[in-house]
């Protein structure tokens, strides 16, 4: 069989996903899937910045905040403005992209780790600003009762099912966009920058433009996720966008495999599942047998931390790695003493 056909056959089970709400009528399950979908979108976006272009962005939640707050301010009673949800999806991803460029433009000259710290600072400033400007944002209370999206006159309301389909649709678009980008001229430029920026510049790549577009595109995914998530939650408040959200999304990438779209999706889904299902359920389980002093949800940050440390030490390429990323990370670990056999392995893998 043609390898391309065989590869695409693997994705056939995914076609069953839209049927889930028809089979599973438990609203909390659909709700979980819709939330997980928002984080998959975030992970896909961060993957463009960190995975493809190799720029460590530690303030990614800021763009999520910007997307959410744009929806909350432009589609609620807050200012009496009611822009439709579908328009806001485009508008907010545009707004987030603009902020991505605003952040990127002055900072792109910086080396990798300095860039990480500046983005972290940005990630702190944005929610703090939303918190402080309480005359516009209601400060710590946030903005609630946002407009419910509607499609062909059907209002979404509080059921999770329509949001599930929205997220699924956005993810499909996101995956198509990201995978096409990856194989485009721009995607190859990102990869070249990631591996060796100096060499990339010498090969004639406009590194500034390439990095800025990585920031802008990554941010726009986050803006999309922000709008959909805010509409679903019916509330935005500054504490939804703290540093731990940025680290959570980063952990998803590190777990699944930076730079590899299926890996990122699996990593993201796995962490969401652990967070909202496994930890609370296992806590309930041990509580039911009388061990009431144990609460596994208290170990959430420890879990992110252990994932980051253990993965970087033992499997930096992630559980489902991209071949190129694997070669880069592994080669560096064994450098300078690469054995001849390994060398051929890498070359084979990279091909």
């Amino acid at each position: 069989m043609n390898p391309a056909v065989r590869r695409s056959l693997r994705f056939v089970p995914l076609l069953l996903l839209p049927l889930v709400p028809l089979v599973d009528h438990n609203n909390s399950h659909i709700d979980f899937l819709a939330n997980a979908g928002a984080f998959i979108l975030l992970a896909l976006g961060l993957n463009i910045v960190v995975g493809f272009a190799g720029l460590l962005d530690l303030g990614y939640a800021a763009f999520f905040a910007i997307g959410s707050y744009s929806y909350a301010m432009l589609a609620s009673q807050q200012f009496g403005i009611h822009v439709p949800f579908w328009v806001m999806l485009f508008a907010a991803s545009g707004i987030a992209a603009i902020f991505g460029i605003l952040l990127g433009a002055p900072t792109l000259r910086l080396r990798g780790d300095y860039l990480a710290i500046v983005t972290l600072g940005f990630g702190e400033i944005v929610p703090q600003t939303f918190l402080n400007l309480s005359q516009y944002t209601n400060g710590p209370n946030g903005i609630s009762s946002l407009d419910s999206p509607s499609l062909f006159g059907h209002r979404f309301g509080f059921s999770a099912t329509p949001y599930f389909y929205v997220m699924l649709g956005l993810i499909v678009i996101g995956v198509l966009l990201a995978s096409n980008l990856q194989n485009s001229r721009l995607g190859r430029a990102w990869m070249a920058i990631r591996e060796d920026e100096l060499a990339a510049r010498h090969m004639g790549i406009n590194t500034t433009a390439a990095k800025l577009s990585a920031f802008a595109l990554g941010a726009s995914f986050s803006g999309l996720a922000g709008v959909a998530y805010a509409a679903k939650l019916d509330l935005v408040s500054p504490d939804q966008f703290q540093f731990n959200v940025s680290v959570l999304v980063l952990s998803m990438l590190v777990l699944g495999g930076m730079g590899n779209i299926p890996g990122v999706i699996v990593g993201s889904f796995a962490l969401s599942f652990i967070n909202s299902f496994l930890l609370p359920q296992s806590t309930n389980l041990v509580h039911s047998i009388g061990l009431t002093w144990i609460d596994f949800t208290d170990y959430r940050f420890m879990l992110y931390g252990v994932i980051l440390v253990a993965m970087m030490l033992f499997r930096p390429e992630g559980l489902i790695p991209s071949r190129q990323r694997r070669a880069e990370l592994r080669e560096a670990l064994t450098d300078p003493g690469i054995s001849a056999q390994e060398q051929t392995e890498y070359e084979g893998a990279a091909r």
Partner: protein
Amino acid sequence: MDVFYQQLINGLSLGGIYALIALGYTMVYGIIELINFAHGDVYTLGTFFSLAILTGLGVSGEVHGLALVGVVLVTMLAAMLLCGITGVLIERLAYRRLRNAPRLAPLITAIGMSFILENVMQLWKGPSPISFPAVIPNPSFQAGGVEIAAKQILVIVLAIVMMVALQLFIRNTKMGKAMRATAQDRDAAQLMGININTTIAMTFLIGSALAGAAGFVSGVYYGTTWFFNGFEAGLKAFTAAVLGGIGNVAGAMLGGFLIGLVEAFATQYIPQGAQWTNVVVFSVLVLVLVFRPSGLLGEAVPEKV
């Protein structure tokens, strides 16, 4: 004008704490070019260790006379030692294997270590702020209309003494020389017979011990702490290290005091300034990195290829 001088004193004592933390950032960055993200949490751990030691000593309030000197010295030195050991363990566990990996790999493990430490402290003392005994009696001195508390003098003096001691250590001892050599060129240093593992471990020991000292004085100074304290303080101290010129010991000190002053004056002179101090400090960080990444006292170093 009194308000100005009062904020000057407040800013300098805040800055003393940032400076002590910044020394650790700058030393580690200087030698292995890693932003030791977990450093801020080692500092908070210093407060937690001090609290445990004070509880162990049965101290829960003011101490006077010779006993005060004893309690302060014992607590601080023990906290420094424990933090130093923690720092060495972190390096051994999370950073050493990744020394030749792409730069972002150890930075990611550093973030991971930071989250682990925060979670450990949260499990240890719970998620709410905890109070720290006011060990040092607090007579304050009046100079004009300005009030200077004893603990403020302690912070400022301690920071300066530590910086001078560190500077002397790096300039004059054999280990200090090894550190400078390793920072300059790790491979060449190794060829000259320097044990770089020991040298780097030593750097972490000293840097983390200084964070431990900062943790103790911040406990005394603020009278309260919580598990997440180190995140913000760490970021500000890192800003201080960058502002002063990363890798430069005197620069870290200068940057620390400047950041403390920025914070104090922002609180005073910007309307609702207390809400905006973080925004101001991080804006300083961004501006310095963009316009003068080598900092005030640092030299511009071309990127190693």
